[in-house]
């Protein structure tokens, strides 16, 4: 993929910017140009998510797709953000056997992958466990 494919998503991938429909109040991540509930009657505005959430479900990828071989095994989780929407992302700095449904997580800024040795390095959010306060 060329640069624009990655570049046009940087607000979402770097800042967790999604959207809110001012008509029905529902929040969405990633961005949509149309509220799927209200469609043409909706009014969508940008909304920045806190990056905090909980693991709703997770898996450990042991048979990775092309481009992710160096990272395997890695955790992929469906995270329920505290504002409601869910997002799929990696959970890092956590051993695969330590992940559990319900664990609190927060976003961190990480390298997602490199297209090739001389290609674009893609960055964006992943999640890490929220450290306990004890």
């Amino acid at each position, binding site marked *: 993929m060329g640069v624009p494919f990655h570049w046009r998503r940087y607000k979402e991938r770097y800042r967790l910017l999604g959207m809110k429909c001012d008509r029905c109040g529902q929040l969405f991540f990633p961005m949509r140009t149309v509220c799927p509930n209200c469609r043409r009657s909706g009014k969508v505005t940008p909304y920045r998510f806190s990056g905090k959430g909980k693991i709703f479900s997770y898996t450990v990828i042991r048979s990775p*797709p092309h481009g992710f071989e160096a990272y395997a095994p890695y955790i992929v989780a469906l995270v329920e953000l505290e504002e409601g929407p869910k997002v*799929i992302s990696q959970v890092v700095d956590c051993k695969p056997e330590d992940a559990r449904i319900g664990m609190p997580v927060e976003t961190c800024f990480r390298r997602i992958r490199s297209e090739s040795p001389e290609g674009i390095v893609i960055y964006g959010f992943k999640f890490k466990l929220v450290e306990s306060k004890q």
Partner: protein
Amino acid sequence: MTRASENLGKKRDVAIVAVGSTKFGEHWDRSLAELATEAGFSAASEIGIAGKELELFIVGNMSGGMFMGQEHVAALVADFLGLQPTPALRVEAACASGSVALRQGYIAVASGIYDIVAVGGVEKMTDIPHGEAILTLAGAMDFEWEAYIGATFPGIYALITNRYMHEYGLTREQLAKVAVKNHYHGSLNPLAHFQNRITVEDVLKSPLVADPIRLYDCSPISDGAACVILAPLEKARKYTDNPIVISGCAQASSTLGLYDRKDLCTIDATVNAAKVAFEEARLKPTDVDLLEVHDAFTIGEVLALEDLGFCKKGEAAKLIDEEQTYLGGKLPVNMDGGLKAGGHPVGATGVKQIVEIVRQLRGEAGKRQVKDARVGLAHNVGGSGATAVVTILERER
């Protein structure tokens, strides 16, 4: 979901007059066009129909482009079959490409625009390295927000599986039983990709692919093709003494991404398609004698039993434990081995499910024949549930 149901009374009844398929498996010696040709000719030779009698040719194919660098697959296959100048078109809906193609053929005949329509499904998946095949299949999901961060297709189904186990207490052993049963049925099907029987222990010892999904929970990467020929019921007897009627065929959509689903443990597109298909057929789940469901991963069969209305949410494991889904059980499921053992050349699968049900309803299914089968249901899912098609087939009433 709304549809012009008041117009359903005006549609023509559609019958399947011929079926054919290749063996599913790793066909290193044959190309996509060669596989499609074998399936097409095996259907056509059942009734001795000539190519010039076919008025429209529709082929389901997910990704000729990424699996083998070839788009314009319908023209390629029509060319190999010698079907000129018959219009040929390709339909794509990921793993549901075959059944969406079937539904387009059904609509074409039901509408009265065409009489004789051939619907094929084909996929050639083994020409590229494994990692590239995984990436291609991941295109059935939301590429930008799922595959992009390293989620695989088994990984997405693993998210469903893990949550389902958490919410309903489904066990690893119960999931394994789905694969064991489908391998048993596959062992009775000479066209299945895998014809070996396996045990629960084999499944639980197989390598983890995406926890808790293990290798033996997954359908294989296969090559294969299947074909059916459709005709209006009123003209079907010209071609066959044993036409099989499409009494309901419905399709529904849901969100492309798993992250936007309201309930992770329900494929709502299946629920919606089943509701319309049963209404159209004027039948209910208790009328169905056998099922072909989308067990790309073992959890898929669990969800299908519930979402199609054969049991309540969370109760499919009971049917599995009681072995009711076996040949000889109350509700035989995936008699040809399903996707798990039968093989899953993605674009071909939806058509192959129809081929199996037709063979069962005709009484031609050999060792895996369901006794006195009159009504069969096929269920095909695209991606993680963004598309679902439910088709109900019957012997002529």
